[in-house]
């Protein structure tokens, strides 16, 4: 692998405990292990059974850093529905790669030309949609998609969380109408015939931010060399994942192993490559690097989540989203680490996005 000469000092802490949840987009952390030795680090990967457990262990110090939903760090920073702590986002791990799956019955109704709004209004029972964590990205994609069709996600339907591994069976039982989660759970539901991958997340917000490398802010402050070394390892991993589709095939093989996703490689790989059968087109799949545009911790990305918490009434007090983002996203650390690898950084901290309903952000 590429040997990298660290410009910053030796890591203050050499053995880092990294949490992850069994999702395809934890791939950067798996691959980062290959680059750890040259950065003077040993990375221990610890699979977590829930986002709540991952959060608690980050806060208690049992984990040093983690593969985390973008919104998880922001929710903890703002103390929404749980403990409050100062959080840090060291870098973005990926864009895109999530989806919304619908029950075959609901998909059929939509195909027949009824709007979701009509279906919700005339349904004899309340429709139920599941996601994975209250302040998480999947909740926000689901809510955005519903709202873009004139359906209020909190008033017009029931919004619940169930474990991703149970999504397919719950859909099949008829008690759930759709879910938003990461892969490979959409592939699992499609394979079981329990659901239809209706829309992929890059169709809600092209090149949306998804998972981050999260830690407590005091970790980044106390161990800046370790934090930079970790960013370097993960940046190299992201670059490798995007360099060649053969690398993605190799990543799928790694992810399939029992200690990581424990799901068949045949369900993981197609969606890493943008194949969503029975669709014949190839909507934009997960991206890990994009020459450093994916990995940069854009302040405008973080601010979006704050704006959505305001939109859905999670926070009532008056706060400035960009100020919150500037506290969490460690752009200075990231820039130093990227410079050490010769990876380009943007001039500013804001990128322009257009979402599915035509809204420009910021």
């Amino acid at each position, binding site marked *: 692998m590429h040997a990298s000469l660290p410009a910053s000092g030796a890591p203050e802490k050499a053995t880092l405990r990294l949490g992850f949840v069994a999702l395809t987009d934890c791939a950067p952390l798996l691959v980062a292990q290959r680059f750890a030795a040259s950065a003077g680090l040993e990375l221990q990967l610890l699979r977590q*059974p*829930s*986002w*709540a*457990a991952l959060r*608690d262990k980050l806060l208690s110090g049992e984990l040093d850093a983690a593969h985390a939903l973008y919104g998880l760090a922001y929710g903890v920073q703002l103390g*929404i*529905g*749980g*403990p409050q702590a100062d959080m840090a986002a060291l870098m973005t791990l990926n864009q895109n790669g999530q989806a919304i799956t619908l029950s075959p019955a609901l998909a059929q109704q939509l195909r027949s030309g009824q709007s979701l709004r009509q279906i919700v209004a005339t349904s004899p029972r309340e429709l139920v949609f599941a*996601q*994975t*964590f*209250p*302040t998480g990205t999947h*909740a926000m994609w689901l809510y955005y998609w519903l709202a873009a069709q004139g359906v209020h996600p*909190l008033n017009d339907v029931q*919004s*619940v*969380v*169930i*474990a991703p*591994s*149970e999504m397919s*069976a*719950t859909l099949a*039982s008829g*008690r759930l109408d759709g879910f938003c989660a990461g892969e490979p759970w959409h592939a699992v539901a499609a394979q079981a015939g329990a659901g239809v991958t209706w829309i992929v997340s890059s169709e809600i917000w092209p090149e949306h931010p998804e998972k981050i490398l999260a830690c407590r802010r005091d970790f980044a402050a106390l161990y800046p060399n370790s934090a930079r070394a970790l960013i370097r390892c993960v940046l190299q991993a992201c670059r490798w994942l995007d360099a060649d589709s053969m690398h993605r095939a190799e990543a799928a093989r790694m992810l399939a192993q029992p200690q990581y996703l424990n799901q068949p490689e045949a369900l993981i790989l197609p969606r890493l490559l943008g194949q969503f059968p029975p669709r014949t087109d190839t909507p934009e799949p997960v991206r890990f690097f994009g020459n450093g545009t994916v990995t940069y911790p854009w302040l405008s990305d973080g601010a979006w989540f704050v704006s959505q918490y305001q939109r859905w009434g*999670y926070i009532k007090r008056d706060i400035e989203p960009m100020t919150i983002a500037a506290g969490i996203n460690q752009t200075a650390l990231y820039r130093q680490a990227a410079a050490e690898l010769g990876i380009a950084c943007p001039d500013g901290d804001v990128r322009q996005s257009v979402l599915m309903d035509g809204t420009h952000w910021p």
Partner: protein
Amino acid sequence: MLRVLLVTDTAKAIGELRATLLQQDYDVLPDAVSSTALLWAVEQQRPDVVIIDTESPSRDTLEQLAVMNATAPRPVVMFTPDANQQLIRAAVGAGVTTYVVDGLAAEKLSPIIEVALVRFAEDDRLRQRLAKVEQQLSDRKLIDRAKGVLMDKRGLTEAAAYELLRTQAMKQGQKLADVARQLINMSDLLG
């Protein structure tokens, strides 16, 4: 009467709390065995307290309920500042997370957490006791082998061999099993 829901979707024996809680006159609802079951149970049966393994994959379901619904069980650490923090830390340390309805008085919650704590502290003691018994068993085997070596090489009786080992251990201030291990290693070396 407080309504308690136990979530039993991991290897940790949360379900074993049932008998004790029933004895203490709590209303213990049917166990939830998955996050889906937990969701419907909370909606339909409105438990006051949910006890769940910290490593349960169903915890995120409760996190959502805590954000969305004021009457749903909430994580105890955040919502009951007056509860006995020491007790709660100990419960979390024992691998049990408790979610309670906002405003539930600490004195009502404490006995439930205590039951969980005693139960899982007991588990821990059992594990330690088992480890000790296993250690004793393997020590015994070592000592028997060492006795065999002495009986064989020095023509001693079993009692005399044991006495020799014991004297040696006392002289060196070492454990009997350690002396036995040294003797066996040495005799392997000498053939």
